[in-house]
């Protein structure tokens, strides 16, 4: 009799073990990054330490939303914007102590797209957003053929890279101006800004208590009217950076004024 109880106990223990073995282990906390809805036994949860950021970039000329091909009043001169593109890179958050956390990404900004995923940032309390208009020097002089065609740094049509002075075109505007005021935009011009020295860092006040696991969108307006501030709209409007240093200097000075946090 004693013997049979022992045997029963062994069987009971074994079956208990078998039950626990068939229970699927996994993270049962829906707030975890590895949440497993089919898990039966809670274990090994992992939690995000970062949040995601999207930029919502809306392009304007003064009060009017910019659409490529449209004609806009630029300080009294009608200008038709055929192509407006710009590189934004090295987006980073700054905390009250001035420390930066960065995400490594390059965005080719076009008026027809407004949403840009710029990656993830360490959770924390931040006061400012910074980013560069342009491409850092090492990447700027690397070979675009090394990137796939759909990558912002890969070859583009229309081209956003100069081969004869190797480097990316940070800002490219192809447009036509009505310089004689007769109602037709007769004067085609190109404003192509590049070269390491013309990279500009934009800083915007953007207080954010960035919680891990969250996604945030920063709404930023780009007002291309500001780009023409101080430009003689009756004069030569074309620059490929090196060939019109005076105009280039004015445009590059204006870069940081293009951006504002949307109300």
């Amino acid at each position, binding site marked *: 009799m004693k013997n049979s109880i022992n045997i029963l106990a062994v069987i009971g223990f074994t079956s208990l073990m078998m039950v626990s073995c068939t229970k699927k282990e996994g993270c049962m906390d829906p707030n975890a990054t590895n949440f497993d809805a089919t898990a039966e036994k809670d274990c090994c949860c992992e939690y995000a330490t970062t949040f995601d950021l999207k930029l919502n970039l809306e392009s304007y000329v003064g009060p009017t939303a910019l659409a490529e091909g449209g004609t806009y009043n630029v300080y009294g001169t009608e200008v038709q914007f055929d192509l407006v593109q710009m590189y934004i890179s090295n987006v980073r958050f700054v905390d009250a102590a001035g420390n930066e956390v960065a995400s490594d990404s390059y965005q080719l900004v076009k008026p027809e797209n407004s949403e840009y995923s710029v990656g993830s940032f360490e959770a924390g309390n931040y006061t400012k957003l910074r980013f560069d208009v342009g491409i850092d020097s090492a990447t700027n*002089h690397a*070979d*675009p*053929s*090394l990137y*796939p*065609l759909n990558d912002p740094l*890969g*070859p*583009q*049509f*229309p*081209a956003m*890279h100069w*081969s*004869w*002075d*190797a480097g990316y075109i940070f800002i490219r505007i192809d447009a036509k101006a009505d310089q004689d005021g007769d109602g037709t935009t007769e004067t085609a011009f190109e404003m192509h800004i590049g070269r390491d020295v013309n990279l500009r860092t934009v800083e915007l006040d953007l207080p954010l208590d960035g919680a891990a696991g969250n996604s945030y969108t920063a709404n930023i307006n780009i007002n291309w009217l500001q780009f023409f501030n101080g430009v003689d709209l009756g004069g030569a409007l074309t620059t490929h950076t*090196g060939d019109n*240093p005076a105009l280039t200097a004015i445009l590059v000075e204006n870069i940081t004024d293009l951006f504002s946090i949307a109300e």
Partner: protein
Amino acid sequence: MSTPRYVHIILTMAGLLGLLLSVDGCTEDNLFEMGGISTLDIPANFPDMPVPDDNPMLPERIELGRALFFDPILSVDSSVSCASCHKPEWAFTDHASFSAGVEGRLGFRNAPTLANVAWAPVMLMDGGSPTLEQQVYVPLEDPHEMDFNMVLLTERLSANTYYTQRFQAVFGTAPDPFGITRALAAYQRSIISGNSRFDRYARKEPGATLTESEERGRELFFSPELSCSSCHNGFHFTSWEFINNGLYTDYGLDSGRARITAQPNDVGKFRVPTLRNIAVTFPYMHDGSLPDLEAVIDHYDNGGQGHPNQDARIKPLGLTSEQKTDLLHFLYTLTDNQFLRNTSLVE
């Protein structure tokens, strides 16, 4: 006896066989034959060829690059090929001061030779492009040359059965910017010239002699008085430096190196050009403004126009007409006829 040295060639056959060949002191002109392009005989007096890690000198890459180089499919209206301006029979130059691109459009520089371009530390006369691979974009996208675009070229080649098959065989992918630039660069690295009469004389090969006039010209060229060889030196007759040789007092729209650096003291500086095959690469200078070698020699004899950035070695030489003729005869010995007739470089 010629002692050409051979670059290490990695030969892959049908993706099955990988062979690493390294032969020194071989006396044959061809190391081995395979599909037309097989050898890279680098003359004994040349340094090793610099080859980027991502673009080994594979025969099938060279061949695909050769097909692209001679194909007008690279230009917007399929009218102009690389060879339109870089003609093999003229050492990969053109006899026009400015070569016609699509719709006959003219650029602002004279097409340079591509001989031994593998050794150029930077591309272009102003050094604006860092590598042979990246340089491909220059003619491709310049409105005065091919006026096309890499994205559009990739699409066009991907719709072409011949090229989709070739790229698949060579790179294992559809045509893409990486393959296009690598193949063209590999082919251009195979454009090697080092068998002029002067080379054979310098290597003391049997029967290689200079005439008395050529010999006097050689002494003038290498003399400290003329100092030609202080700039046009080394195996490729260039120091690769950016120099103002006093062609103009006002360089107009083409500021040379200053176009890239924006530095006033770089105005009028151009990368010292090679003098290999110089007799067939007329007209001369960055803008093709000097029609013949007599005009070039007169330019140096006069001591330049006196630009503020003019190099101090450019000064009046006081050459006699006999000395000028001797110098001219020496320059003629730099022509490599074997290279100009090299059919394996031609599609």
